């Protein structure tokens, strides 16, 4: 706990120093980065220690504000979510040191201040055990990331994103206030330790409010609208942190609050699972239809949050069914996927950032062939792509294995949850293939083939700090993939703090063999690939492979423009899912006999935003517009309101 307090202090100090040094960007950057790195090291040490020793420590200081107390609790659940925070903010800071170098120097102070504040507030969110403290940290998190989203506030998209983000964040925070109020209606400080499940409809209301509030941060469909706008708008290391870690705070909060609401009715789990499945499928379909790299990654975050929620939902269903083994499996699948997602999504956003910094664009249709100019970045990005598609031997597979195993177990003979199990495994399979298609498209159009425009001409490999930063999540991906059994103990500890100490044993009973085998399979796969590669090398020994143009079925001079583009790649799938993905195509109209230039492009419409939010906003604005007559400026009417209200009150109340 002391180490964590130290890292909190370091982050806050770094933030303050960076803001104070806003006239000297280099000093601000040094302060911000150094604080973040040091804090990461301290924090990681502390949380790993807690996680592996299964410890529990708390701290409670009085805070002279109504309902508040400065209560911190470090239990395994908190420690588990601290790991991605510290991993990614540390790596992000290192990356940002290279990424922010050179552009927008006058904003460096503010940017680093906000970045360190974001790290500190996320740490505090996870640690706090009092509603007022939690909300303070929560809103500081929203505020600091809002400022970072508006880093490039001269761009209208950034302002739109910032607006959407701020408003959805505020709505979510208000819902959380309601949830906390329902959990602790009686007077006194709102410490988590004093929370109790309210009776009757209030429990359901608290659950729905928490789902809404945390869901708006976690960004599952249909509460995700801010996500694909805000993540691309922020600088890439911030996108990595936001997408990789910050949205996980929604999952953390949901888990924390669900802990107060036990026992859970079955429909809660069903609802969460349904939201999860919709988010997973919808998210990946929308991702597939995007052709801006960071937007694609943002939608893919929606998909992964969906997978996590599916695990949570199945686990909750299992708990209300009394099947703790199944619950342990699905919860740990969800938890591990949360960690995994922060690793590979962090890596992918950093990779995307390197591409954007080096070429100035993230448009897939303008890129291509970058693996020759940026080989290391390309390898990292490919690694991330494989991991996010859930492919062995990487970490994504491990968590999807746990989820799939849970789904299959739910299908077992005691099959009250069988339909849900079927939903889980079908969604997993569909999402897995769609994600693979999506990331093949992304990495293929950015790094493979030939450049599609001149934007890539000046591309250079990312700088040292950026590459070093990318190595951190990359190492995590490989480690979790190769040694999944190591996750068993921490996950058991976390399960213990959610479901009670009994649940921990179930996990090792059911998951230790599969995890060990998955690790063995991963190692075996690695060895097999090495063997095959060696065999290939041996076969080719002494022979000099020929070189030539790509065989294009007899066409002698293929040009880069003839390549399959990102839109063409995904078109068959997007066409099939037309009702969900509204792709608007702009087709050229060819009229002359010798048409000169023509281009064709497609754009995916944000379905939920267009069909849910825009009409609702329009309806409310229309209402406001209609009622604006009330303030029409005539004194007579104003006095009449008073008279009418008075007479109405007299008639009604006397």
């Amino acid at each position: 706990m002391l180490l964590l307090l130290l890292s909190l202090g370091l982050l806050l100090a770094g933030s303050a120093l960076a803001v104070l040094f806003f006239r000297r960007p280099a000093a601000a950057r040094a302060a911000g980065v150094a604080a973040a790195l040091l804090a990461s090291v301290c924090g990681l040490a502390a949380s790993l220690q807690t996680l592996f020793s299964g410890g529990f420590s708390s701290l409670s200081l009085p805070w002279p504000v109504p309902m508040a107390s400065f209560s911190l609790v470090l239990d395994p659940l908190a420690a588990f979510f601290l790991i991605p925070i510290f991993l990614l903010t540390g790596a992000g800071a290192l990356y940002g040191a290279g990424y922010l170098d050179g552009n927008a120097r006058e904003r460096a102070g503010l940017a680093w201040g906000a970045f360190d504040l974001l790290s500190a507030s996320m740490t505090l969110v996870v640690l706090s055990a009092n509603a007022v403290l939690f909300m303070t940290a929560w809103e500081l998190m929203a505020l600091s990331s809002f400022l970072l989203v508006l880093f490039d506030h001269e761009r209208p998209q950034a302002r739109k994103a910032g607006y959407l983000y701020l408003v959805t964040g505020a709505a979510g925070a208000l819902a959380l206030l309601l949830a906390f109020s329902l959990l602790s209606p009686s007077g006194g400080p709102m410490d988590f330790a004093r929370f109790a499940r309210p009776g009757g409809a209030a429990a359901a209301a608290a659950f729905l409010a928490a789902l809404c509030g945390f869901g708006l941060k976690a960004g599952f469909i249909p509460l995700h609208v801010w996500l694909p706008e805000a993540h691309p708008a922020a600088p890439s290391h911030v996108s990595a942190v936001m997408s990789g870690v910050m949205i996980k705070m929604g999952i953390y909060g949901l888990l924390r609050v669900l802990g107060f609401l036990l026992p859970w009715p079955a429909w809660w789990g069903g609802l969460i699972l349904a939201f999860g499945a919709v988010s997973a499928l919808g998210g990946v379909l929308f991702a597939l239809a995007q052709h801006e790299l960071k937007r694609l990654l943002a939608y893919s975050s929606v998909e992964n949050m969906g997978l996590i929620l599916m695990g949570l939902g199945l686990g909750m269903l299992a708990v209300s069914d009394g099947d703790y083994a199944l619950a342990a499996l699905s919860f740990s699948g969800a938890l591990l996927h949360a960690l995994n997602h922060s690793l590979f999504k962090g890596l992918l956003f950093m990779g995307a950032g390197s591409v954007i910094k080096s070429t100035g664009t993230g448009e897939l249709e303008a890129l291509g062939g970058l693996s020759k100019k940026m080989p290391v970045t390309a390898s990292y990005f490919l690694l991330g792509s494989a991991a996010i598609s859930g492919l062995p031997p990487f970490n994504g597979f491990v968590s999807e294995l746990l989820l799939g195993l849970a789904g299959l177990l739910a299908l077992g003979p005691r099959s009250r949850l069988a339909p849900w199990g079927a939903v889980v495994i079908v969604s997993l399979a569909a999402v897995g293939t769609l994600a693979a298609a999506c990331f093949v498209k992304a990495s293929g159009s950015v790094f493979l083939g030939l450049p599609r425009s001149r934007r890539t001409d000046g591309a250079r490999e990312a700088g040292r700090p950026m590459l070093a930063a990318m190595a951190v999540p990359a190492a995590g991906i490989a480690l979790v993939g190769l040694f999944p059994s190591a996750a068993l103990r921490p996950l058991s500890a976390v399960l213990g703090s959610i479901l009670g100490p009994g649940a921990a044993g179930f996990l090792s009973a059911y998951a230790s063999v599969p995890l060990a085998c998955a690790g063995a399979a991963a190692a075996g796969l690695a060895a097999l690939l090495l063997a095959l590669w060696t065999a290939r090398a041996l076969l080719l020994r002494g022979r000099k492979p020929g070189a030539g143009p790509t065989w294009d079925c007899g066409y002698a001079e293929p040009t880069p423009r003839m390549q399959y583009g990102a839109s063409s790649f995904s078109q068959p799938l997007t066409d099939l899912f037309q009702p969900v993905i509204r792709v608007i195509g702009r087709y050229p109209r060819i009229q002359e006999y010798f048409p000169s230039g023509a281009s064709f492009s497609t754009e995916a419409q944000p379905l939920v935003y267009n069909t849910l939010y825009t009409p609702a906003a329009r309806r409310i604005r229309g209402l406001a517009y209609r009622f604006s007559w009330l303030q029409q400026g005539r004194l007579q009417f104003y006095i009449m309101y008073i008279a009418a209200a008075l007479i109405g009150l007299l008639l009604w109340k006397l």
Partner: protein
Amino acid sequence: METLRPLSGLLAALLLAPLLPGVANKVKAFFGGRKGQPVLQLYYDLAKLLRKTPVYSVTSTWIFKAGPAVGLGALLLALTATPFAGRSAPLAFDGDLMLVVYLLGLARFATVLAALDTGSAFEGMGASREAQFAVFAEPAFMLGLGALACITGSVSLSGIFGALTVATWAAAAPVLLLLTAAFFVVMLAENSRVPADDPNTHLELTMIHEVMVLDHSGPDLAFILYGASLKLWFFAALIACMVLPRHSGAWATDTGLFLLAVIGVAAAVGAVESAMARLRLLKVPYLLITAFAFSALALILQLAR
């Protein structure tokens, strides 16, 4: 011999897999009234390709070269988890079917990336189609396996097919038939056979799998061809496991019967290819959705029991 027995299934797969395309082709030739190529043609091809010097496009990078090796490696590992003749596979654990499905995914991922690395319009087209069909094939396959898990109460491939007995067939014949049909359709699509794809077509615009590997040559192409035959073996073995629920316990009898069944599946593929025309590309997803519907129906029937 005793040490070999547990591995016999794996060995048989490695050695006999290239036979299956030959069998299918021979059956096709029979129906067409032709003599056809030799059954061992793929062995000859592989031997020749391994000796050839490859040619690489200047556009491509290491990803292009790694693709075939990764694809082959993934399939090799998948086969270690495939049960054989009523016996457990060398690699069997709860949830191993997830591993197998995701390994197939890895192979696809590598192949598709390698195709995109060439920067060729045709290969990109094939890659796109491959990715598209997988989206439908894989859920159908997973759901089918899930239905089997529901029937047998086991969640590993070896466990499922170990628990599949005559009694199971007697109790749930319609369900199992539906699942067999679903697996067969998935097999046709995953292995680029008619009616999803035509391995013998010569029109690049209509190809799927073949067009993706246009640029590969030499040992790389050998890896790909061998990997494709392993994939066919994998599905054929699963279907054989489905339709052969009875095991005598004698190793030789079981193995012989099982091999016959696998070859029978290959022959059935050939028969289907002779009897049907290739579907239009747009209709292929409908075929796979039908397979998905079969799997779903099987599960529903089982749950409603």
